[in-house]
């Protein structure tokens, strides 16, 4: 009944870490073509940005990577393994974490409990142990608690709100808690869907700092969807540009911001 718990990020057995590979992804809903041939690799330990106008297919891409949509064509590979048909929970077990555009925290729980849920795949308490609690389950829980406090809550500076129910938190803090929950999974690949949407400059700067810290301290590969161009250009080492489901550019921030197709589709006047 219990699987071996998953360890944190480890060097890829496949060498030079092309951890997440998207190959020729096609996805349509009825008549709507959400993705038409998306192709890129997220470099291990790098921050890759995905940008594009609204409706370009960015969230559909994320949903396909997460496993909520089955693509019509193409492959999603994680660390060399083809995960295109794996269910979302199995992908999480491999080390894929994600935050959502519209905050998907559990509103019936506190911050601490939400973050503890991030540790779900790394525990292996089974139902009998759970019913008993005293013994294996308690030990595991206390260990998890300690680890979360020291590595996530301290790291994200949310210790003053850790007992608060989610519903009491302002938007910016909720986003941070969601990041914390994803971090508690000790992911190898982290998908961030608009992590600074709706934040002011201060909050955005804070979040950007946290994201950079995550990359530095944990070596996590990060894939980032964002509209805030300053932040994207600042922290991403590579950027992929989507428009109407098609990939129109891919490269470093300098290359992308000078790409005429991108400018035309998206950036408009100043870059």
């Amino acid at each position, binding site marked *: 009944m219990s699987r071996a718990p998953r360890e944190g990020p480890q060097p890829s057995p496949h060498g030079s870490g092309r951890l997440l590979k998207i190959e020729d992804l096609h996805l349509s809903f009825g008549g709507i073509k959400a993705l038409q041939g998306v192709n890129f690799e997220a470099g291990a330990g790098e921050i890759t940005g995905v940008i594009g106008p609204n409706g370009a297919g960015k969230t559909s891409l994320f949903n396909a990577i997460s496993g909520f949509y089955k693509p019509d064509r193409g492959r999603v590979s994680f660390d060399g393994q083809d995960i295109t048909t794996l269910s*979302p*929970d199995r992908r999480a*077990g491999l080390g894929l974490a994600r935050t959502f555009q519209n905050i998907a925290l559990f509103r*019936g729980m506190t911050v601490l409990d939400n973050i503890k*849920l*991030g540790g779900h795949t790394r525990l292996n*308490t089974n139902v009998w142990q759970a019913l008993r609690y005293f013994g294996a389950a308690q030990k595991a*829980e206390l260990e998890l608690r300690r680890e979360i406090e020291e590595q996530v809550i301290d790291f994200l500076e949310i210790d003053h709100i850790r007992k608060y129910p989610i519903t009491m938190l302002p938007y910016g803090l909720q986003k941070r808690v969601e990041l914390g929950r994803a971090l508690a999974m000790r992911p190898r690949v982290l998908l961030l869907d608009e992590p600074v949407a709706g934040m002011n400059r201060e909050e955005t700067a804070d979040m950007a700092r946290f994201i950079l810290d995550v990359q530095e301290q944990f070596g996590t590969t990060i894939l980032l969807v964002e509209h805030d161009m300053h932040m994207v250009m600042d922290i991403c080492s590579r950027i992929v540009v989507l428009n109407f489901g098609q990939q129109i550019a891919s490269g470093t921030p300098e290359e992308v911001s000078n790409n005429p197709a991108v400018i035309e589709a998206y950036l408009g006047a100043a870059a």
Partner: protein
Amino acid sequence: MINANLKSSYAADERVLNNRYKQAFVYGSILALALFTLFGNDYLILIASQMGILLIAVVGINILTGYTGLVSLGHGAFVAIGAYAVTIFGNLGAGVIPAGLMPFVSVPLAVALAAAVGVLVGLPSLRVKGLYLAVATLAANFIVIFLIEEDLFAPWTGGMVGINTNVPNLLGWELDTKREMFGLIAAVGLVSLLAAQNLIRTRVGRAFIAIRDRDYSAEILGISLLRYKLMSFALSAAYCGLAGALFAYFYARILPEQFELALSLNLVAALIIGGMGRTMGPVFGVIIVVMVPELIKVLFGALAGDSAGAGQLRAPLQQIAFGVLLVLFLLKEPLGINQIVDRILRAANRWPFARG
């Protein structure tokens, strides 16, 4: 009055009974229960036994509906399965297994059977949402009761007229008085309440709540909806089966009509009235759901005497009162008595400071 609740270790912070008042309440209640078992009057023991049996089942429903957010209008079927299974197993194994060991064999078997059927009934939950699940469980309830009543199986189940039950024999100690049975019920009830509380403190309970709140978010955290929804069904069915087994031991005879739709609706109503998703909810709910019809009975007896005509009026009146109670809570206090108690405790906590 509690000003602050500060702990100096994670272990202390993780405790459930984390202040003196809570500890006093829990230990005091256990003591009171023990004293009641020994000295309470017979009539009250009877009432309390009903509450105890119902409590175990409602705790099961709390796991399914309160924690995991899955609606079932048919869990009475599992109570029936538990009751009949423990009786039938008891009859089948009568010669083979010594009487003193029988409950230790037949009860787990009955509970396991209930859990297995629970998994079966829970299969639709994987593909359909709330409403459809409610009707699917309703359908399952009707089917199970029908199978019990059906003549085909009457040689084992006694069909419509029911079947006599056995007296439990725990390693030589025969529990043939209601009082002794209550002791067993109270003990089992406490343990099951504790076990359900424990679930929440572990990843299993958290996973349930995650599924309730936002199932796709639970999925990307690695929670297999398939596994956990079925687990929730199995657990809740097991609890109901256990309640059924105790029910069979408590009463001299069981009949299919005791487990019909009304029982399933009672379980859900008790949960709503008491408060979903919290540990004490089932306790409050069960007290109300058993006390109110009892009070009506007593009132009726006082006012109308013992005439047959009064008896005819009493049952429908209890039904109406029950429905009105449920509706009132849904309209006025959907979070149940738990919420009311919370408010009182918060006010007591703040006293003598003003609100706010």
